[in-house]
């Protein structure tokens, strides 16, 4: 295996770069020195890291939507609307699914069809096909920093283009943009390809331009136990840091149980700092909280309830930014109006909660401890399997099922872990597969789950998992059986 968690030499990088920039014709327009000059002239308020830093200092939580359509003018109109009417703090460009699979010919077809149909036939902005100059047009039409958000296992050309265009943040990572997004891309390849993206950012940093990188925290968005997502976030943070990335935002997707969510964000932040320190990286760290990433109800008012609960949790957890859902989530890509509605409900909630923090109770303290301990169990094993190399360790750990992401489509994922909610809605492990959680922590998990089984008067079972998957879209957090009678547990 020719993979290593080691900073690429410039030689190695530039050699591969030749090839990358030839993957599609627009690669020719990328010129790094020119890009650095361009970015140095950009106003501070269009720099992603700068804006995140200010928010961190002020203790506020920034709001970022998801959005992207096929054509440049329409995309600009969309983002302007989210900026002006929606009051977004940070802007995205969501990339379409063909680009994510490097199928640029299909993008071309999608662009043509969109022109004919007069509405977007693509689920995002085909950034590679549009190329550097068009991306700059997007950035220049706006007053906020722009980030690419996608799900691309091989995002090398994409990354080249967006950074050359002055977009100062890129979401993704070799694990988080492969296992939940692909079926048959090997981890060796995706990790290497993301080392390229990270090294690229590292080079920009060396040349004096700050670029933010954000591993995709929520993974499959569906009942992922916090210790699994935190482990992968930390791993991707370490891999990025090694390539010279300096500004990192680690992410987490809402579970819906407030104690667990607040604990998970704190655990993530604190533990990441520890690991960065241990390995000698100096990282400017921020956090991102994703509003509920699983299935939504079709009713828009109910969707607002979920959006707002996520916003409140983000603020109480003290996340640096929150990624927003919309009232159209269950049905389709939102209109710009629906997207702005999601942002506004979020902002109002954040502003109400601003300055309040979840007061740390013993319960939350315990939850933080548990998440950190579980995460450490997994990370230790990954490190051991890689003989101290996190890149190698990650590949081997996935092969062995030590790393395992629930419901992921990749064939490189064991798919043995089964998550389920406990009686208060916290996500726990029902089946561990080969994830190396200690006996003691398993007991804790089990004890929480047994309470649910008892309350619902049914054994722990796969049906519970299915019920939980549907629960939020049907109006509740926990998928209780239809005949569930309210117990007297909560009596006060």
């Amino acid at each position, binding site marked *: 295996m020719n993979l290593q968690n080691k900073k690429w030499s410039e030689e190695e990088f530039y050699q591969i770069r030749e090839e990358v920039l030839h993957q599609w014709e627009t690669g020719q327009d990328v010129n790094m020195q020119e890009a650095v000059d361009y970015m140095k002239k950009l106003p501070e308020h269009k720099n992603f890291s700068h804006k995140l830093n200010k928010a961190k200092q002020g203790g506020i939580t920034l709001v970022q939507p998801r959005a992207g359509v096929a054509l440049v003018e329409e995309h600009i109109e969309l983002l302007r609307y989210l900026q002006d009417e929606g009051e977004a703090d940070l802007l995205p460009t969501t990339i379409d699914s063909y680009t994510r699979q490097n199928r640029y010919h299909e993008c071309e077809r999608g662009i043509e069809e969109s022109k004919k149909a007069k509405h977007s036939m693509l689920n995002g902005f085909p950034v590679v096909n549009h190329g550097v100059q068009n991306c700059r047009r997007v950035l220049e039409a706006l007053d906020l920093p722009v980030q690419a958000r996608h799900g691309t296992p091989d995002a090398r050309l994409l990354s080249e283009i967006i950074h050359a265009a002055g977009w100062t943040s890129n979401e993704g990572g070799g694990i988080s943009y492969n296992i939940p997004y*692909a*079926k048959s891309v090997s981890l060796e390849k995706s990790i290497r390809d993301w080392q390229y993206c990270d090294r690229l950012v590292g080079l920009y940093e060396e040349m004096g331009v700050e670029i933010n990188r954000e591993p995709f925290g929520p993974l499959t968005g569906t009942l992922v136990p916090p210790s699994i997502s935190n482990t992968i976030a930390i791993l991707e943070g370490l891999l990025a840091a090694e390539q010279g990335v300096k500004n990192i935002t680690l992410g987490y997707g809402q579970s819906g149980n407030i104690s667990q969510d607040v604990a998970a964000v704190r655990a993530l932040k604190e533990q990441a700092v520890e690991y960065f320190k241990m390995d000698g990286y100096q990282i400017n760290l921020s956090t991102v909280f994703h509003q509920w990433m699983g299935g939504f109800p079709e009713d828009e008012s109910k969707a607002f309830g979920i959006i707002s609960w996520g916003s409140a949790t983000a603020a109480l957890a003290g996340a640096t930014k929150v990624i927003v859902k919309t009232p159209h989530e*269950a049905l389709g*890509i939102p209109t710009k109006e629906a997207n702005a509605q999601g942002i506004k409900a979020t902002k109002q909630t954040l502003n109400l909660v601003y300055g309040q923090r979840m007061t740390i109770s013993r319960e939350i303290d315990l939850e933080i401890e548990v998440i950190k301990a579980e995460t450490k169990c997994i990370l230790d094993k990954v490190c051991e399997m890689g003989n101290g190399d996190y890149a190698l360790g990650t590949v081997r750990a996935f092969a062995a099922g030590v790393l395992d992401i629930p419901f*992921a489509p990749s064939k490189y994922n064991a798919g043995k872990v089964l998550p389920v909610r406990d009686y208060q809605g916290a996500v726990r492990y029902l089946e561990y597969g080969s994830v190396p959680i200690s006996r003691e922590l398993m007991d804790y998990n089990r004890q929480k789950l047994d309470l649910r089984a008892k309350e619902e008067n049914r054994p722990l079972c796969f049906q519970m998992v299915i019920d939980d998957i549907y629960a939020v879209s049907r109006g509740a957090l926990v998928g209780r059986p239809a005949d569930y009678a309210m117990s007297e547990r909560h009596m006060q």
Partner: protein
Amino acid sequence: MGKKTIILGVIGADCHAVGNKILDFIFSSAGFDVINIGVLSTQEDFINAAIETDAQAILVSSLYGHGEIDCRGFREKCQETGLDNIILYVGGNLVVGKHEWTDVEKKFLQMGFNRVYPPGCNANDAVKDLEHDLLIRGKSKWRVI
């Protein structure tokens, strides 16, 4: 009625795996022989699997919005490859954005799918529909609606 083999998969560049896993579980529990080709499958992947296993139905999912582009010509390709009798279902968030369901349904029926399901559908209803359609098909030759 013969054996009840069905092909399940998610078409195009679509990686949404959760609904697919659930459909697999539900149709398997209902006694079907489910060949699940998973996410990111092409029309050819579906058709090859159907030919190989002599399947009676293909259940296509598309969640990510490109369903319309990805499904075009599917029925024709089935016929070209000799699967002219096969039942084709499709379901999910089939188009980009929030649209009137009846319009979406019509669009896919016209493309030659026998039944079309919205994201909020109950998968058990689809099981019943399929059992029903297979029964009918046993009696008369299946007719594309």
